[in-house]
């Protein structure tokens, strides 16, 4: 049951992801639609995903790929660490630390606590690197470019995905970590897929509670982890 949690969090949090990744999707959809529009005989510039379905698939595949990669790395790193005698005894504490981190990230998600500035500067570097890479990917019409875009998007700084990475790390197993992140990514796909279509569904009134639910679930997960690490919960 616990394993399905990332999926649920992804689903609930996808409404939040819409805010960030949604514009990205729209951005490349624009280019795709424009192209297909000139090909067809007039018709409105709707972002119908019929025209660019492969692009969308590629985008999401790229995202899932990057998530999976991150999850594998996180889980695998701690798996390796666990093997070494140094970290062996610290199983419980890793979970607890992970849990506390999750709680903290949940608070950041709720915007109750600002992200510490040293973390912000830490991500600024790779982020600006990405900033320079990404724009040409938007305009390219090749499907492969969208996959690259998806890959980059997966690395974008986002507290929710970070929380999931931490969760993956606590599994201390590369495979499990990978699955955690994949599940999360899968949960976020449906909403982003439908970006071009629905309007009222993703209004702020719906998105905001969705984000809150995600943040809450992250915090609850964090608590559970802490309790597990302390041995109170199995």
């Amino acid at each position, binding site marked *: 049951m616990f394993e399905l949690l990332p999926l649920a969090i992804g689903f609930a949090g996808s409404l*939040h992801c*819409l*805010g*960030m*990744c*949604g*514009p*990205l999707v*729209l*951005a490349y959809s*624009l280019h795709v639609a424009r192209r297909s529009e000139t090909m067809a005989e007039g018709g409105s510039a709707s*972002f119908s995903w019929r025209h660019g379905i492969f692009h969308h698939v590629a985008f999401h595949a790229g995202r899932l790929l990057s998530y999976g990669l991150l999850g594998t790395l996180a889980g695998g790193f701690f798996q390796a660490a666990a093997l070494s005698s140094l970290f062996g005894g610290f199983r419980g504490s890793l979970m607890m630390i992970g849990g506390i981190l999750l709680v903290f990230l949940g608070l*950041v*998600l*709720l*915007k*109750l*606590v*600002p*992200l510490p500035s040293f973390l*912000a500067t830490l*991500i600024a570097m790779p*982020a*600006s690197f*990405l*900033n320079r890479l*990404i*724009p*040409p990917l938007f305009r390219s019409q090749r499907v492969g470019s969208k996959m690259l875009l998806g890959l980059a998007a997966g690395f*974008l*700084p*986002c*507290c929710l995905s970070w929380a999931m990475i931490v969760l993956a790390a606590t599994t201390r197993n590369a495979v499990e970590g990978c699955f955690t992140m994949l599940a999360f990514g899968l949960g976020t796909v449906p909403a982003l897929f439908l*970006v*071009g279509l*629905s*309007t*009222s*569904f*993703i*209004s*702020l*009134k719906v*998105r*905001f509670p969705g*984000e809150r639910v995600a943040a809450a679930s992250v915090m609850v997960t964090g608590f559970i982890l802490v309790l597990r690490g302390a041995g109170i919960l199995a």
Partner: protein
Amino acid sequence: MPESYSSDSSRKEECSLCGLPVGRSGIEETVNGELLRFCCHGCLHVFQILFNSPEGLPADFRKTELYQACVSSGLIAGGQTDSREITTPEDFEAGFARELSFKVEGMWCTACSWLVKEILRRTEGVLEAEVFFLSDLARIKYLPHRIDPREILERISKLGYRAVSFNDLCDGADGAKGSRDAAIRKDVLMRLGVSAILTMNVMMLSFALYAGFFHELGRESIRNFSYTLCLLATPVVFYGGFPILKRAVLGLRFQSVSMDTLIAVGTLSAYVVSVIGMYRGSPHLYFDTASMLVTLVLLGKFIEARAREQVSRGVGELFRLAGGKARLCRESGERWVASDAVGPGDELLVLAGERVPVDARIIQGQTGKRDSFYRLDESILTGESRPTKKSIGDEIPGGALLLDGEMRVRATRVGSESSLNQMISLTREALTRKNPVELLADRITHWLVPAVLVIAAVASLVLWAGGLPADEALLRAVTVLVITCPCALGIATPLAKVAAIEAARSRGILVRDPTALEKVKDLDVLVFDKTGTLTEGSYSLREVVVAGGSEEEALRRVAAVESHSDHFLAREILRKARERGLTPFSEAHGRETMNAEEETCGAANEVADHFQYFEGLGARGNVQGEEVMAGNRRLMTSAGLTIPDTLALHAAAMESRGSTIVFYAWEGEVRGLFVFGDIPREGAREAVSALRSRNIALWLASGDSKETTGTIAKELGIYDFVGGALPSDKVEIIRRLQKDGHRVGMIGDGINDAAALAQADVGFSLGAEAGIVRDASDITLLAGSPAKVLDVLELSVLTTKIIRQNLFFAFLYNVLGIPLAIAGALNPLIAVFAMLASSLTVIGNTLRITRSRRE
């Protein structure tokens, strides 16, 4: 069309990319000179990716197609961010906003007011909301087509507070409101009573457990004790503590952490630990802590509510007065109407023992006494218990109590212009202003609660990790929670401020700005306006110089003539005559019914016939067949009368000192003259010397000539004076004094002193009788006596002293308590008592303001 999430004024704080609220993420970036906020770094980076494309920064990213696409698909709430360029439906709607003030009863700490504010702000249709705990007031701006005020009131009532609009407050007999209050109080008292009784039993039993006997008690006995304790404590925690728990839960729902949260967490922790301990058979139980906590908190709130009532009693009375009824006179007869329904010019009837409902002018009636004066008790407005005397033609303020007789009056100022309502709104404004110290205290309290929760949690975790048994660590945490409860801090300043405002009002001093009250004690220079402030008015009858006949005769005859005239000099003559009891008065427009006594007194009805008025010269009339004239030199000479030399010389001398002269004559001879000039007010001299003895420098500034000003200054004992001062000159005087480093107070009558009053550090205005309350002054002395400045001074010194003491006491307990609690030197019970003690100290100290009375 995307809808906005929140209808409150924080709409600016939405992420420029995704539109979700920014909260406290603190991520900002300036683009093209515009500050954009983001909810998370992800949004920031996406924004950079999207809009910082290699084509260069778009001049206005909002015009890009991408942005529009995002807006139309609902990702970004475009409406709000474009509000500067495009008129959104929200902006358009806001033009329809209306304001509503209402009373919220049942708030028992500042956190309740935050909660109510949050709820109000999240209600659809409410644009802004402000709630003031101490005055039980709420003020909102709402859209009437979106929400009905009744719904708003209901919403709050559902939470357990009573929301009452001011109109309803005054409906029906006062008993109705009283019984509502009584019902609330009875409920609290009931809970308190039950809790207290049960808690006492709990304490007894717990003492038995503590007292060392548990070593010798078998498991069986321990279990009996425990179950009994649990049985006794449960109703206390859940019935007595129900309001606290409910508010804590509500607060959680609306993310408003409050003192109730602290208490609830503390109580529930103690209770739960005890229940677990009970099952485990441990003798370490803390039911007494939980019960005592609830009981003492209830007690504290009860006492605080009573104190608030005491402190703000007068204000409530004012409100009651404003909502009264009036007896309207029509041709068809008399009718009772609400005071609000009275229009200007309406005729009203007021009987003895009744209050005048609105500002009005007396037109006729019976005084009920021998003389021609109506006696009114204006103490509710001016604080003076001595009755004032008014006559026909005089204006009386709404709220004055007629002591005897009956009178017909014509309403002059009604509704929001009436002096009573102006007083009320000023008082309300003063009560709801927060000075910087209070705002700071508010903010501290707001943050203190979550911080304390965190400290307590961390401390207990650390202690536990350090080896302390879990329940002991938990108990230390509970102690920390309890001792840090900032109840006292929340009321330290506000309660004193309300007490001060009310104490001032009961003395007839209207404080519009509480910070001004605090500044008063630092004043070292006072600038007085002359005319009307320190003096009665420049046209008071100072002297009657007679060449033939007596003063009384002169007054009687001239008064008879002047009774037809509306000139201010004429009125002054009439007034003086009446004061001396010389004429039965009658107004030119009506006839009074004389009673038998006055007939037999033999006072003839002296009203002149053949009245003639000459513009710029004077008046003439026939009194009992003789021609009487009153006027200036030209009138006399034009009638062919010569002025005797002695009189002429006297007149010249007086005029050179700025006085105004009116000659009077009858039977073909000039008989004397009236000298009109400035007389110092009653008590002005004493006030001046009292102020001087406090080392306050005094200045007199006036538009009148230097000679006149100088004369008055000397009479009063003021050394620095300026005559011939224009209003701008007065401002200049004050500014110069301020530049020299003085703190300057200005006392004037508000009309032509407005600028000077505003320039001064504290502006006092002397309220005229039917008080038009001036806007420019911080403090209004309603009684019209400059001696009241001393009262303000004393009050200011006292209030500041008490506020400082309150803050000290409030902090003392908290600051000392935390380290002691963590170190385990305090047990929760002591902490509970200490918390109550700090509240009581603050309350008791503040009541010193309310009890301080002059004489």
